[in-house]
């Protein structure tokens, strides 16, 4: 009677996993005779991956609940061919597993296509996300993406807790570069400055093109003193950049982000305007330098200068 069913049937001991029954359907599916299969261990007919899956997931589930349905496995035929199958399994109190096996060649193809489609969609999504987050000229984060990332950094720093500082960097006399040497030269300078700034950052930091010739840097787990060190590195990283014989320089405004505020946006806005004030002061004091603005817990004290760092280079073009 079992021979008439168009599906594979196997009975197998739970203990030693040897087959005590295999119908002709499953035998011919695998190129054996049913006599050849009986007495063999189940492992012999499973791909190695299927074996791991059996041992780490299916078998424990069977021991616990007694059944397993719609399990996709790969069987290995006598000639080494791989046969995808779908299995329903029952374990009983007498120590046997009863398997019903259905050929799943077409289903397997469909699943493979689904997986590939899903992977492709994931890759495309990642690519689009990256594109949407990046400034096309410099490859740095754009303003919108950096705002989102900054909120994450803020929450992370609050949890840790660890200090977070913010730098606004503006290329000195950039308008003149564009006016005198043209926009393509201006673009080249932007790219080189972006590369130089990026070379000073760690993977945990954030670097973004904030606007025209302005960059935003957020230094993770870094206090004001560390940020001053970082701006020194930025000033010196720019030393090799030239426009004809003229050196390129930047002015930098530094502010520590207040982690005592619950609202990330509020703390960020506050730190950005503080850094902007410091940047403005750096410009007013002759450019090519770093100024620090101290932000107090609630309102920021204007004009409190902690330390000024002079760059070594002369004014740019």
């Amino acid at each position, binding site marked *: 009677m079992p021979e008439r069913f168009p599906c594979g049937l196997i009975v197998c001991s739970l203990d030693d996993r040897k087959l005590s029954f295999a119908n002709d359907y499953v035998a011919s599916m695998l190129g054996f005779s049913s006599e050849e299969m009986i007495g063999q261990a189940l492992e012999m007919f499973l791909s190695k991956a299927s074996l791991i899956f059996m*041992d780490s997931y299916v078998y424990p589930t069977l021991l*616990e609940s007694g059944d397993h349905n719609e399990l996709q496995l790969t069987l290995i035929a006598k000639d080494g061919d791989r046969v995808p199958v779908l299995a329903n399994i029952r374990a009983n109190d007498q120590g046997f597993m009863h398997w019903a096996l259905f050929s799943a060649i077409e289903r397997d193809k469909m699943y493979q296509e689904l997986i590939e489609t899903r992977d492709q969609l994931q890759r495309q999504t990642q690519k689009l996300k990256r594109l949407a987050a990046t400034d096309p000229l410099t490859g740095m984060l754009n303003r919108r993406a950096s705002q989102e990332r900054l909120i994450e950094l803020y929450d992370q720093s609050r949890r840790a807790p660890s200090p977070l500082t913010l730098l606004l960097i503006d290329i000195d006399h950039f308008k003149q570069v564009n006016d005198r040497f043209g926009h393509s030269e201006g673009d080249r300078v932007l790219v080189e400055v972006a590369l130089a700034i990026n070379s000073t950052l760690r993977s945990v930091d954030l670097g973004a093109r904030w606007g025209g010739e302005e960059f935003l840097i957020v230094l993770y787990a870094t206090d004001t003193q560390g940020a001053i060190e970082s701006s020194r590195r930025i000033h010196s990283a720019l030393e090799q950049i030239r426009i004809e014989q003229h050196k390129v320089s930047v002015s930098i405004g530094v502010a520590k982000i207040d982690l005592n505020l619950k609202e990330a946006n509020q703390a960020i806005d506050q730190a950005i305007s503080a850094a902007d004030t410091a940047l403005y002061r750096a410009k007013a004091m002759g450019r090519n330098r770093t100024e620090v603005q101290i932000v107090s817990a609630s309102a920021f004290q204007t004009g409190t200068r902690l330390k000024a760092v002079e760059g070594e280079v002369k004014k740019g073009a």
Partner: protein
Amino acid sequence: MMTADTANPVLVRNNVSVIGGGSRTLVFGHGFGCDQTMWRFLTPYFDEDTRLVLYDYTGCGGSDVSQFDGERYADLNGYALDLIELCDALNLESVCFVGHSVSATIGLLAAIKRPDLFSSLVFVCPSPCFLNIPPEYEGGFDRADLEELINLMDKNHVGWANYLAPVVMGETNGEGMVTELTQSFCSTDPTFLKPFALATFFSDHRADFERCPVPSLILQSSTDALASQQVGEYIHANTPHSQLALIDAIGHCLHMTHPEQVADEIHRFQSKL
């Protein structure tokens, strides 16, 4: 069974359960593809003055999956951190840790990082590395086998009830049904199972076993397709202060199929420490 103090976020995250009291503590770490319910065959073999601590790794079983952080759980150290954090949350020290399969490695990594927490380790069907690394080491599997495993998991996830449950039942049915389905035995959301599989099957922790800071017992199944006898002997030879106990059995889940022998071996090991 009492559920531990729900106020501590770590205990909630890892669905920690504490059974019994007493001065001795055993902590049980489940293997890949499963959760703490797999220990229910073994736990009755320990008397009431032994405190038993069970948990689910983040992303598995009844853990709080919202705490799953892809970066943290990209390798086994993230899972070891779960174990360390829950021991700290329960103020445990000098426990005996019993880890099945990949949990043996996870327990070892935790012990290397925090030797104060552990007095001994019991490895149930351990493997430091599932990959074959010719010529010196045979983990049992080629890279292609393990890549097929990931593919097979994907294919089964496409069909798995817990993946489709929320879709099939719709939002209107309330969360009850879905929760019941997804919390059935050893159910694990594919989103979290796959990173665990990658961390488990593609890592090589052989060198860590040489650094094992406490005495250990290796419980080896005589016929285990996932962790062969040869692998058990390799660990024994390369782990200081280790003992090897061979249990005549077929399969990779000794604690489920041969719980009495596993309990006897653990008792004997503990009494000689």
